[in-house]
């Protein structure tokens, strides 16, 4: 390797057009993800959030444009190389019935392994660290069907951590979780960046939680980046109306002073 570009996990899109069949979901989209930070993609249903994430992860091939990882077009990178640097957790991953937690998390090490080198001390250490970080060490030999939704989500995050990529993309990691487990998972996600300058990009439904946990927001609207920046810059009553079609007031969160969106009350039960 002669190139001296720092591998910081800077992900960006240039003229990115992605779609299904004839329909373009993203049209000539440009964005820069700040390395080493947590970025949340927010937007209404069908605004192209998940498609953007899938495009960034090369799960969907762009029709035009490119995704750059530290300046290199990921379309030109060998799949195994890309997997060492960029990981993604799909929205509803599937697992063989009855698979144990340790077995599943261990499969995240595939990019680091070869047929003749199936399990190295580094694999052992990475899987142990991933299970420790996600607090599932004591569940190692349980089948994942026997876990609660929150625990299961931790297992999947542990798999992505065991892969140990510089950039980690998470597609709605909190869907189907109750509020306390949502907070739990987001606390975990926020801690991922701190320990090892990891770039984290996640799609989130809940705008208020996104404001709390993300360093940067990307607001999507009809397949385009409508606004991006720090939550305090992006989340204004006007942007929320344009992006979500929702009348609201934005006040400072009393706990974190991040923006807090209060939908305008149409029906007042209490005065």
């Amino acid at each position, binding site marked *: 390797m002669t190139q001296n570009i720092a591998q910081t996990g800077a992900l960006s899109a240039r003229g990115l057009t992605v779609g299904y069949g004839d329909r373009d979901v993203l049209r000539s989209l440009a964005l820069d993800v700040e390395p080493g930070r947590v970025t949340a993609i927010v937007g209404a249903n069908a605004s192209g959030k998940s498609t953007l994430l*899938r495009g960034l*992860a*090369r*799960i969907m091939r762009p029709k035009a444009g490119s995704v750059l990882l530290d300046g290199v077009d990921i379309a030109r990178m060998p*799949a*195994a*190389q*890309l*997997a*060492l640097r*960029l*990981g*993604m*957790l*799909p929205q509803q*991953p*599937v*697992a*063989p*019935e*009855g*698979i*144990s937690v*340790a*077995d*599943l*998390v*261990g*499969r995240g090490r*595939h*990019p680091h*392994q070869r*047929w*003749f*080198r*199936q*399990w*190295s*001390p580094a694999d*052992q*250490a990475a*899987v*142990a*660290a991933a*299970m*420790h*970080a*996600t*607090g599932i*060490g004591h569940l*190692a*030999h349980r*089948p994942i069907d026997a876990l609660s939704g929150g625990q299961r989500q931790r297992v999947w995050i542990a798999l992505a951590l065991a*892969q140990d990529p510089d950039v980690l993309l998470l597609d709605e990691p909190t869907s189907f979780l109750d509020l306390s487990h949502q907070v*739990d998972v987001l*606390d*975990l996600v926020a*801690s991922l960046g*701190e*320990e090892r300058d990891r770039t984290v990009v996640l799609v989130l439904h809940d705008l208020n939680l996104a404001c709390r946990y993300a360093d940067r927001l990307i607001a999507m609207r009809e397949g385009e980046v409508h606004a991006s920046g720090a939550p305090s810059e992006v989340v204004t009553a006007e942007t929320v109306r344009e992006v979500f079609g929702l009348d609201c007031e934005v006040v400072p969160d009393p706990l974190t002073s991040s923006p807090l969106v209060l939908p305008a009350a149409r029906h007042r039960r209490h005065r």
Partner: protein
Amino acid sequence: MAVHKTGPVRGDRYQVLPPDVRAVRAGGAALLLHVRALVLVCLFSAAALAAGVVSLGMGDYPVPLGEVVLALAGGGDPISAHVVTEMRLPRVASGAGVGAAFALAGAVFQRVVRNPLVSPDVIGINAGASAGAVLAITVLGGSTMFTVAGALIGAFASAALCYLVAYQGGVSGYRLVLVGIGVTALSSALTSYLLTRAELHDAQRASIWLTGSLANRSWSHAGVIAGALLVSVPVAVILARRLRLLELGDDMARTLGIGPDGARSALLGSGVVLAALATAAAGPIAFVALVAPQIVRRLLNESTAGLAASAACGAMLTVAADLAARSLFAPIELPVGVLTAVAGAPFLLVLLARANRIGRSG
């Protein structure tokens, strides 16, 4: 903000490999060995060997066990040696190979499609191979080569038909099973038509072959199945690691660095070759492909059936079933397919009854 502080973690702090799995290191290489699966492979192989040796001694010209072993070692009395190695060994060897091939094909199919019902006998691959082979037997005279070619063409044609009809931006196991039932019906109709049009002698030959029989196998049959295993086993060995990622879905497989489409095509292709050539060599012996991986899955108490253990289980089942089919109603010999059907059908019913959700069961 972190709820779980990440301190320095020693690698041995958790036992992160499943309890039955050991990492074996030598030089720069490291392989994962599944101890329980390995034990199963040994047990199944030993059982297959035992059943095979008993089978070699049985028949119109009984040969005592000691003579059988002597003959296999290349000695003993010349008549016994001829009976054992030339007349009976091809049958046992074909049985073991065919069983291993069907079971391996079944395990690969079930794991790739993530559905325990998707085995080559359920989704019409064997029926397609049968139609092709019956065409070869009744129209072209049925030399081994024509039968093999017919079975291969029939199997790939029905696999392709199944895949094309079931494909909807991806293939769900349940849909494949439903389409497979249709393809099976189509192939059976073709087979029946060919039988009604055939000469009586050919039709009789074909219909015995259609139940799945190991009677009168020669070394050419054993050669056919050995060829199939030679081609497909390396594919399975090389792609077994990718199969473990395919089981996590296409998106996850991609993000972990493999192309799911290529790996899936290669695995399913090798499964079709195995099922086709096994059918060509011994007829569509029912249920081995469906049952063997499920037995292994339960014995290993694992989510998925190990490929090697499944193959060994299939070999054992087929050799043992053939032994039973020959001895239960002696001197009448049943075709082995009758026995596997009688034993396997209730198993299929149990699997169907336990299918609790679309696409998942067992």
